[in-house]
């Protein structure tokens, strides 16, 4: 999912903060995380959760079929219910799935190709639809994903997985691999065993959608201002949406509680029955999310008590320093695993990184501790020693696995030079990259603001120690990504990259980052070009060539192997995958498993982090602010 990478303003603010904060927070452990009361008293029902964001930054207009922004998924957690879902809590427990609309976990056929669900009765859509949710409403959500006009941004999780789903269908048509024999039964037929299929069914795009409203929005993004609730909260004013009006009229009258430029106000869905839901607590009466472009103002309002919590913007330096150093404030700073890895990516096609020994030498020479300090210290994340954040592997592979371990994670010239000596680019065997044409003037893409700009001299100097002279090119976030995701640019090395999970299975890292299926000319996410072949280059028009005699490693078979498994076998398979990529392919220097920082006010009496979305758990937190719903809007 897309985190904050598009929030330039927020990141700029954070950047300003980092240098000062580094001194204040080095070695400081954050406040309570995942789930904790932050003030005296037990959580009670009532009040309004008041929060703000500098910009929503939606990628798909908040239409559940399209939207790929983690923050939006946080909101959907309070608005939509899926066949299976999470408890919206923090830590590894927050990644466990439970039946939600379904009466129980599915019946899975022995070959792993058929999943049968039965729906609970008595669960209704919110106003103005007000009718019981049926299996056809879930099938309709998949038909929307399959409609090429809808622009489902993560339809690839279903295309080619469910029979009949290709994402190429023109219009809403039945999907051959989805059966709805009656209103409370839905059966999925898969093309191949898919061990993380249940995670995919917990994605917001697969939540039931009422055709009565969604039919008016055949193209991507349109339904976003008309999302009908199937969960505990709905957009304020939903009841005023008239179903009797024509589509041309409806599109002109979006639900009043949501204006993507200003606010999203969620209130209780009167049709929701708590008795049908044992995943969500729903303490607050309403959730008021305001857009405030001034990030400092958001945190000032939290400090003043006019907001109960920050949402997704990182706190400015001064604010963060106060909360790290003041014992009375520290409990209100929450640092939780963002399930995101920041890394340096190396291109397997470009010298000198087309030599695995050079890539290993780079791993040994980088001072990861200094990079962590450049971010602002441990509060911003743990030093990454391999690909997947530990929670993704249910802590089966933690930072204790460190194939490029150096004392204090500060880098080791001796170890790096030992690797470099094995490289073809070190004919003198002096531990340095010696061939000028390959080892000098190497373009390194980076972002043009802190912490990336702060990290840059560290990386440049470290690489210079082993004879690699890079020339940094600093760009704005979007431009930096687009430079490295356009394959014909053939960028040798980049410092700007990071990746967060879509759901808690390593497949969401493995396939897009290392799978050859991800290799496309524009929008490529396999920046290292792992698994590229001449045939793929030709077929996709990638505009690159493979150096003569080079055999580019592929991990496609490993990905397919793991994807076909389930349970503990699957987990071990992904552990092996991570180790293989780190030691045999070596496409990255992973350096930070990032945390997400949230600051709350004393009025927030129960803090819970939602591990799935990576933000505050809207259905599990409680407030005692006595704000009434009638005061909103």
């Amino acid at each position, binding site marked *: 999912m897309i985190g904050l990478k598009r929030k330039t303003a927020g990141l700029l603010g954070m950047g300003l903060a980092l240098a000062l904060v580094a001194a204040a927070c080095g070695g400081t452990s954050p406040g309570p995380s995942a789930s904790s009361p932050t003030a005296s008293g037990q959580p009670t029902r009532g009040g309004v959760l008041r929060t703000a964001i500098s910009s929503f930054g939606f990628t798909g207009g908040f239409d559940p079929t399209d939207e790929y922004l983690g923050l939006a998924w946080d909101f959907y957690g309070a608005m939509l219910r899926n066949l299976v879902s999470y408890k919206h809590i923090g830590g590894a427990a927050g990644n466990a799935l439970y039946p939600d609309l379904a009466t129980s976990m599915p019946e899975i056929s022995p070959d792993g190709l058929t999943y049968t669900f039965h729906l609970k009765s008595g669960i209704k859509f919110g106003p103005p639809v007000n009718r019981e949710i049926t299996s056809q409403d879930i099938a309709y959500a998949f038909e929307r994903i399959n409609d090429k006009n809808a622009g489902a*941004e993560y339809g690839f999780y279903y295309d080619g997985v469910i029979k009949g789903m290709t994402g190429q269908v023109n219009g809403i048509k039945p999907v051959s691999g989805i059966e709805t024999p009656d209103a409370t039964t839905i059966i999925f037929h898969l093309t191949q065993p898919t061990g993380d299929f249940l995670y995919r069914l917990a994605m917001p795009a697969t939540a039931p959608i009422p055709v009565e409203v969604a039919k008016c929005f055949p193209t991507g993004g349109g339904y976003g201002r008309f999302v009908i609730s199937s969960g505990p909260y709905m957009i304020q004013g939903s009841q005023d949406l008239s179903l009797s009006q024509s589509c041309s009229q409806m599109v002109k009258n979006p639900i009043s509680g949501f204006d*993507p*430029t200003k606010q999203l106000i969620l209130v209780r869905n009167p049709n929701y029955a708590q008795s049908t839901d044992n995943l969500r607590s729903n303490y607050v009466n309403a959730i008021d999310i305001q857009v405030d*472009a001034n990030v400092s*103002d958001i945190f000032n309002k939290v400090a003043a008590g006019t907001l109960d919590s920050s949402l997704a913007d990182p706190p400015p330096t001064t604010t963060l320093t106060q909360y790290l150093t003041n014992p009375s404030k520290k409990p209100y700073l929450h640092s939780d695993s963002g399930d995101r890895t920041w890394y340096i990516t190396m291109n397997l096609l470009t010298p000198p990184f087309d030599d695995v020994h050079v890539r290993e030498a780079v791993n040994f020479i980088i001072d990861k501790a200094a990079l962590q300090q450049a971010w602002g210290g441990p509060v911003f994340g743990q030093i990454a020693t391999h690909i997947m954040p530990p929670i993704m592997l249910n802590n089966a592979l933690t930072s204790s696995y460190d194939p490029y371990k150096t004392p204090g994670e500060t880098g080791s010239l001796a170890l790096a030079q030992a690797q470099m000596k094995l490289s073809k680019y070190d004919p003198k065997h002096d531990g340095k990259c010696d061939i000028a044409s390959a080892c000098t003037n190497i373009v390194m893409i980076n972002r043009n603001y802190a912490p990336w700009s702060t990290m840059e001299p560290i990386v440049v100097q470290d690489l210079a120690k082993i004879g690699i002279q890079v020339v940094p090119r600093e760009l*704005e976030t979007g431009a930096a990504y*687009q430079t490295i995701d356009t394959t014909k640019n053939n960028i040798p090395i980049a410092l700007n990259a990071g990746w967060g999970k879509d759901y808690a299975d390593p497949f969401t890292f493995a396939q897009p980052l290392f799978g050859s299926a991800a290799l496309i000319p524009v929008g490529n996410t396999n920046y290292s070009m792992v698994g590229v072949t001449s045939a793929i280059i030709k077929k996709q028009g990638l505009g690159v060539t493979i150096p003569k005699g080079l055999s580019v490693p592929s991990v496609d078979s490993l990905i397919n192997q793991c994807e076909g498994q389930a349970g503990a076998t699957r987990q071990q398979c992904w552990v092996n995958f991570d180790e293989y990529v780190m030691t045999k392919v070596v496409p990255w220097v992973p350096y930070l498993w990032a945390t997400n920082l949230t600051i709350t006010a004393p009025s927030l009496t129960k803090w819970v982090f939602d591990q799935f979305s990576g933000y505050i758990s809207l259905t599990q937190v409680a407030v005692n602010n006595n704000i009434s719903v009638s005061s909103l809007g």
Partner: protein
Amino acid sequence: MRGPPQAAPAPVPSGSDDWDMWRYVARRLLWVVFVLLVISAITYVIFFIMPPVNPVVLFAGKSPTPTILATVSHQFGLDKPVWEQYLLFVKHVFLGDQYGWPGLGFSFQYRESIRSLMAARLPVTASLALGAALVWLVIGIPIGVASAIKRRTLVDRLAMGFALFFVSAPVFWLGLMFLWIFWFRLGWAAGTGYYGFTTNGFGTWLNHMVMPWVVLALLYAAFYARMARGNLIETMGEDYIRTARAKGLSERRVIFRHGLRSSLTPIVTMFGMDLGGLMGGAIITETVFNLQGIGQWAYQSVGTGDIPAILAVTLVTSFAITFANLVVDIVYAYLDPRVRYS
């Protein structure tokens, strides 16, 4: 038979001045249209042909597939040749599009018509710009006049100290300081955000606008004070001022009737340009005070690659400036009879 004596023809009012003026206005309006076309073409080239970021990739998700890229490209109308896109854009501006007239397309970011987004944000920016303009005129010009009249006195030094301070103070700093002091510490002022007077009442609207007005106005007031002072001092040294004094006019009459009128003419020009520019949004003030106006929108749109929004804001700002320039030139001719419409 002679008929009744014909009435002598009434003196034809000399309409040549009026005619000149209307010709001038028409010519200038055509010029405005031309300027806008040029600006839109340049903006188009910058953002559509060589965009800093490709909006299709930006709005196609984290792991786009070729199918999604093609769908988004089609939805955004970016699958057509650029010249065709531009001609369509111009056509829609003049003739309207599916969302009405003028047709400005739809926002990639918000999936909504630019017109409606603009309509929601223009009142915010207009509230800020007009209110601030009033404040800076009320503060700046009297200070400048007082400073010029009381030249080299304590009043002059204090006035110029005021000007120097606020010219030097960055608006973002001033805004944050005002917020910290008057909202966070003292609780005297309302916090940030825009509350329209039609929906929240005049008092609430005013409460939330006072600080942004003052913060934005202080910078301009300082400029205007310095300019008014300089102009008035220069004017007061003119021969006709000496003549007026020699005729025995009171000093008050000399200053306000003769000196001020002429010394303020250049300020009218400056005022028009400043106000026109502000209608395109005061990005920093709008951001600091969380006023969701045109400037903040432009800033966010650049960050999110929302090209139609950038184009629309550019056009509105250009129009505001060129139109304000036109109005100023017309007013200028009234204020200074030496100026002719030629």
